[in-house]
């Protein structure tokens, strides 16, 4: 293989190959645990450069080896690069990994070693792509595989590949256009003498591709013919509720009644459930469950209803508030969601009575003895502030009906959960502090909030144990269930509550706030029983800030008050931050979803520019003709005629009728006359010959020559 000259074109093509390879790296952080992707990108960029300049093999090897080590150094090793200690640490690591490898203990390979292997792979890829582009001059396979890869990643993982596909589309096709040019000029050597025609070719390809991509992006898209392949594949394989990946089920989040089998991921679903307008609200409480089965929650409390909920002792200070709720058309509930503790419900034009389940707190508007599915209602509720000092009472005595229903655990509950709970709360003395300790524990970075790729416990596996000790990833159900179960092992009565978070504040004015609650707001949390206080909600889910107000009693010491103030402030700040984040996310979401409808500015300008360029391109021949005729309208002497004639030749060449090598002017003129069915070109050639081969100096009939010239110009591409 001979070394190819390192032209700018080659560099351009090779860099396009590099960008294609980068499309493989970009999704990695989202689908695997890979970090430091920029380091890998930089390293492969370095490898590509080294490869491109085709140093002697030993120099390439040294440079690439150095790049490998420096990449490893950047990520893992803290000693000075290539110092004695550095080598010590590095070689020890390699040695260990090699031992693991030879013993077949693949899981024992460390991140460093795996990164080293990955970097080597990237080095090999840089060579492969060099080979494909420079020697084989083919990239289709790699291009197709990149598309396939991103497609698969997009389908089966949360990675959104839509912009990646557009990038790959443009990169790949430009690269193929360039390679095609290369092959063409290889097949027909000498066919194109001009050095930078390839640039024109490329620019044209890019314009076409951007136009195509723009049209593709802006065009309305049909719904997929084949809906999400995942459920289809599951159905085909006869798997119900589990899929091949991480034993995961994708389901829509939202509010459901059945919680017997928890686990699995879900997709965020932004369909509205209801809107509420009124004063300050907290979490919207729907229902609660009291029996943990090891897989999920059920209820075994007796049916007993009250005219209003009585979660809190009279000692708890409450604020009575009202809120109007409007249920979205797509939903209907025979019970009500309410903040705090519900006191009354009113349904317009219907005589209803509030009925609250004494144990679960499920509230319904009953008309004529049956739960009424109201599409809108007004609530009166008590919004509490929980006195921390009351909750910190020692040696509380729970009533019997609470201990009967809210302390049960499965007989085969793994003891490790209880032990962990003991550990966490070992230093706490009162119930409130223990609850807070468990809440803090679950809020710690040890756990990850995630909605996808969440495991479902297998037969005989405990849901809480799996989360606490194995996966440590999950969403509200994992966190709340774990907290409730852990507290029960400490003999603290808890129940598992489901409902919605307070929703997005879509409008805020002085009198009322409008909240929009969507399926994505569905949530679960924990209520803990405190004697003399009642059922107090807690928020164990990582990433969610508690919406509940806990305060120290006013008559407590100043010290405490300060603390109280601080706590509240902190809470508020956190809330604000959280809300901001939420809002931002929602804005992004809404932008993303609205892209098809409300066009942002730049695509309009871009497509406008493309359309303009396209029209100019289509009209280029008439435009050039006009310009030429205008430019040479005053031909009076041989010099001017020569210029006009030469510009005619250039124009003809541009129009695809260039003079061939070895073709004399006269032959060319005759050929053109044949093409354009005229005799004008030959006439012009005779004039030109007189001037340039005959050294003619005297003036001829230039106006005649000019009109012939104009006729000829007008014939081209007419």
């Amino acid at each position: 293989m001979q070394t190819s000259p390192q032209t700018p074109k080659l560099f351009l093509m090779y860099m396009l190959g590099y960008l294609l390879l980068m499309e493989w790296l970009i999704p990695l952080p989202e689908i695997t645990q890979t970090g430091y992707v920029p380091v890998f990108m930089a390293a492969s960029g370095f490898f590509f450069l080294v490869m491109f300049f085709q140093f002697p093999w030993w120099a390439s090897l040294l440079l690439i080896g150095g790049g490998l080590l420096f990449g490893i150094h950047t990520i893992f090793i803290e000693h000075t690069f290539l110092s004695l200690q550095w080598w010590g640490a590095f070689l020890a690591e390699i040695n260990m990994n090699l031992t693991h490898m030879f013993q077949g203990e693949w899981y024992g390979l460390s991140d460093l070693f795996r990164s080293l292997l990955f970097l080597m792979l990237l080095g090999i890829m840089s060579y492969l792509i060099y080979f494909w582009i420079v020697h084989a001059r083919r990239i289709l396979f790699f291009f197709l595989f990149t598309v396939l890869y991103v497609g698969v990643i997009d389908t089966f993982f949360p990675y959104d590949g839509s912009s990646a596909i557009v990038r790959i589309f443009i990169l790949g096709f430009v690269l193929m256009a360039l390679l095609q040019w290369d092959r063409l000029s290889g097949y027909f050597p000498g066919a194109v003498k001009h050095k930078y025609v390839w640039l024109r070719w490329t620019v044209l390809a890019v314009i076409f591709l951007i136009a195509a991509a723009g049209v593709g992006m802006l065009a309305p898209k049909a719904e997929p013919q084949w809906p999400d392949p995942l459920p289809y594949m599951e159905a085909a394989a006869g798997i119900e509720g589990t899929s091949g990946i991480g034993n995961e089920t994708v389901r829509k989040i939202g509010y459901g009644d059945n919680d017997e089998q928890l686990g699995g991921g879900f997709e965020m679903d932004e369909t509205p459930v209801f809107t509420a307008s009124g004063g300050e609200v907290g979490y919207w409480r729907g229902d609660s469950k009291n029996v943990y089965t090891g897989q999920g929650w059920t209820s075994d409390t007796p049916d007993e209803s009250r005219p209003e909920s009585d979660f809190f002792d009279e000692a708890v200070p409450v604020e009575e508030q009202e809120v109007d709720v409007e249920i979205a058309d797509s939903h209907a509930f025979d019970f009500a969601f309410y903040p705090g503790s519900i006191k009354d419900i009113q349904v317009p034009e219907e005589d209803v009575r509030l009925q609250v389940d004494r144990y679960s707190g499920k509230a319904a508007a009953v008309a004529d003895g049956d739960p009424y599915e109201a599409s809108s209602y007004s609530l009166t509720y008590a919004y509490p502030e929980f006195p921390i000092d009351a909750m910190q009472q020692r040696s509380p005595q729970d009533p019997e009906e609470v201990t009967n229903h809210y302390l049960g655990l499965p007989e085969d509950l793994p003891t490790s959960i209880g032990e962990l709970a003991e550990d966490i709360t070992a230093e706490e003395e009162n119930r409130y502090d223990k609850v807070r300790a468990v809440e803090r524990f679950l809020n710690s970075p040890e756990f990850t909030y995630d909605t996808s790729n969440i495991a479902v416990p297998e037969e005989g596996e405990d849901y809480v144990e799996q989360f606490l000790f194995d996966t440590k990833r999950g969403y509200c159900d994992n966190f709340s269930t774990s907290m409730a179960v852990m507290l029960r092992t400490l003999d603290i009565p808890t129940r598992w509550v489901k409902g919605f978070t307070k929703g997005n504040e879509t409008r805020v004015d002085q009198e009322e706030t409008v909240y929009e609650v969507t399926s994505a707001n569905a949530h679960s949390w924990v209520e803990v029983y405190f004697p003399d206080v009642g059922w107090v909600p807690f928020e164990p889910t990582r990433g969610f800030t508690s919406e509940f107000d806990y305060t120290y009693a006013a008559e407590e010491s100043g010290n405490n008050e300060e603390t109280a103030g601080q706590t509240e402030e902190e809470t508020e700040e956190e809330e604000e931050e959280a809300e901001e984040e939420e809002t931002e996310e929602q804005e992004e979401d809404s932008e993303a979803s609205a892209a098809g409808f409300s066009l942002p500015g730049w695509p309009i300008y871009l497509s406008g520019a493309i359309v303009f360029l396209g029209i100019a391109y289509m009209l280029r021949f008439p435009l050039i003709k006009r310009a030429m005729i205008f430019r040479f309208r005053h031909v009076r002497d041989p010099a001017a005629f020569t210029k006009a004639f030469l510009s005619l030749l250039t124009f003809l060449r541009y129009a695809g009728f260039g003079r061939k090598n070895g073709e004399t002017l006269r032959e060319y003129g005759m050929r053109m006359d044949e093409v354009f069915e005229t005799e004008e070109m030959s006439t012009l050639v005779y004039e030109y010959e007189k001037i340039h081969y005959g050294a003619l100096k005297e003036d001829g009939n230039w106006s005649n020559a000019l009109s012939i010239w104009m006729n000829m110009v007008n014939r081209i591409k007419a």
Partner: protein
Amino acid sequence: MEKQHSVLHNVIENIERVVVGKREEIELSLTALLAKGHVLLEDVPGVGKTMMVRAIARSIGADFKRIQFTPDLLPSDVSGVSIYNQKTQSFEFRAGPVMSNVVLADEINRTSPKTQSALLEALEEGSVTIDGQTRKLEEPFFVMATQNPIEYGGTYPLPEAQLDRFLFKLKMGYPSYEEELDVLNRVEQKHPIEELAEVLSLTDILEMQKNTAGVYVDDAVKQYIISIVNETRTHRDVQLGVSPRGSIALMKASQAYAFLQGREYVIPDDVKHLSPVTLSHRIILRSDLQMVEKDGEDVIREIVSTLRVPLSNKEAVQ
């Protein structure tokens, strides 16, 4: 000039009454005559070579001699001999057939090199040396030599170095069906050569030859000639390229051709058109190529069909 052009046109038409379908060869022959050059015709016998030369001679009112070269022909049979006259007691010069305006040297490769060189001296010098005395040949002097490429037995092929004494090397080729039918019709009763008229005088020819030398050759065209010639010197199939004598020949021929076309200046088309017949016998192809179906003309055609033609002097310099 215009007048001379139309006269030449008449000559061509006159010759065409005898020679059918050979317009190109007639034009080239006249070009050679105007350029004071000679023509080597290489073809099988009986395709009208002799007839063409005779027609040319007759049209311009020149006396015509034909030399049939045979192996036993002596140099003196070509150039002439001094014979001792008993009556006058002195040597009397008897002019050979070469002492004529138009000479047809038939099958020049059949005779010995010694005899060939007698003719070639005449071609080159325009004079012959007999008995130590150099005798100037009459002007105009135009020789058409023929060579049979088929028979090689007992022949003495002209050395390459001597081939370039000829301005052109032409091939006649067989006539087409219609042309041959035409030929038969014409000679059915009486050969038309017998009544061919004289349309031009020898003095006219001499004047035209003088005017031909005055045809303008632009530097662009000269550069074109040089680039063609240079190309033959570097061409991969060529062992020996065209010499500067070849460049001169090409330019002179182009001038004559332009004159024949009634033009006062040479255009690249003239050069391109004349290159194969002017240069093909001035190059020696690599010996391994002689087996391949490729001759000098093919090589020259290949060169001129790919070489960029200069549009003007300025472009050629660049």
